[in-house]
């Protein structure tokens, strides 16, 4: 059996409607970006909250956050996804369960599961970065804020967090890129994101190598583009006086 190379395959019709294979990739990329951004918003909000909780001088509060991090970091992402997609809907109350399983479009319910799963999974990682950022600040910052009469919530929102975020931009960037890569698990519960579209193209066109080469190029470009963008941001907001990648 010979392999027929054909790099023009992406402009050919898929035979489904009037779409070309390139259209499939564009749709898939759209889904990938939508999943990643929605999950990232959850991860950033919940992760920041947990990160703060871990540094708060209260055993119970920090214990809860630690337990969360350990739980979500030590169970494989795929297991978590199956739990959110297959198990959790069955635990919902009767009415909600019917709505989720029957009224909702299957794509929408899969999307909700993936976004929630990826968001909570990544939140555990973001939490650790936020905690590291807060702990990396000189202790005098907190003490000074306290001496000036700031309340605990004011210390965090006005003094600690604004500085911590600026320090942890590089690790946060790599977590953000991980969300994009991890969103590919959505293909396993039938969401037609980039990887699923690639597999479908490979099957329909029999141009396996071209199909996967384009997919890797898209992921690669996305990664590099975001990384360069974040490097610029990092330089712009770097905290003066601290040693950082972008600093002088």
């Amino acid at each position: 059996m010979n392999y027929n190379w054909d790099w023009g395959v992406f402009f050919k019709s898929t035979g489904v409607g009037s779409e070309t294979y390139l259209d499939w990739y564009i749709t898939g990329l759209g889904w990938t970006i939508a999943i990643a951004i929605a999950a990232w918003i959850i991860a950033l909000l919940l992760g920041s909250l947990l990160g703060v909780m871990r540094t708060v001088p209260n055993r119970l509060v920090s214990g809860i956050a630690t337990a969360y991090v350990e739980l979500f970091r030590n169970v494989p992402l795929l297991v978590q996804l199956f739990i959110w997609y297959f198990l959790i809907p069955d635990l919902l109350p009767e009415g909600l369960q019917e709505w989720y399983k029957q009224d909702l479009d299957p794509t929408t319910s899969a999307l909700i599961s993936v976004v929630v799963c990826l968001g909570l999974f990544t939140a555990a990682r973001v939490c650790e970065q936020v905690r590291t950022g807060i702990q990396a600040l000189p202790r005098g910052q907190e003490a000074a804020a306290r001496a000036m009469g700031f309340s605990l919530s004011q210390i965090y929102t006005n003094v600690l967090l604004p500085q911590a975020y600026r320090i942890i931009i590089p690790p946060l960037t790599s977590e953000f890129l991980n969300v994009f890569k991890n969103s590919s698990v959505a293909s396993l519960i039938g969401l037609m994101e980039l990887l699923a579209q690639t597999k479908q193209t490979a099957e329909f066109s029999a141009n396996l190598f071209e199909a996967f080469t384009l997919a890797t190029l898209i992921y690669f470009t996305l990664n590099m583009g975001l990384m360069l963008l974040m490097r610029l941001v990092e330089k712009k907001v770097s905290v003066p006086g601290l040693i950082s990648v972008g600093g002088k």
Partner: protein
Amino acid sequence: MMELDFSSIGPALPALWNGMAMTLQLMVMGVIGGIVLGTLLALMRLSSNKLMSNVAGAYVNYFRSIPLLLVITWFYLAVPFVLRWITGEDTPVGAFTSCVVAFMMFEAAYFCEIVRAGVQSISKGQMGAAQALGMTYSQTMRLIILPQAFRKMTPLLLQQSIILFQDTSLVYTVGLVDFLNSARASGDIIGRSHEFLLFAGAVYFLISFSASWLVKRLQKRITV
């Protein structure tokens, strides 16, 4: 509300154990292959030869920017083709082989970065002293630098191995019966998929959690 009944897990344990054996096999082979290939890549990256270090750099950047799931899927579909081109005849390879190759090549990119950081953390005087004693470059690396570097980076290598242990569950996509897949299959047959899924999650958690804890203790002992 559904009711959970875990009593059916007992009889399924032999099947689950077979799955776990597959998971461990994938992990061990991925880690060994990944470390060997990763060390070679790290040496290439650190070499003064521009071409070599750029090739290794490109390899690392490439594999670090694509999802593991994509690599597994691609290799599963592509390895038979590539082997046919090389050997000229049909060579049947199973999903297992293609997954092991995928893990080795993917993890090598991550192990390379760990080894590189490890080598760079060794003081320059070690290299100078070895050369002053008349050792060649390969002797210096083999006998002086790498043994010290590996000792320093053992915790990181182990941590990465735990991550791979969790990531092996992705072989679900090519139908290989690892621990997760055997749990799903056993649960589906008797209609108790929820219990088996929770059980699988609990086992993954216990193994990863206790392994991470041991690694943390080891790290403390090493850094003293």
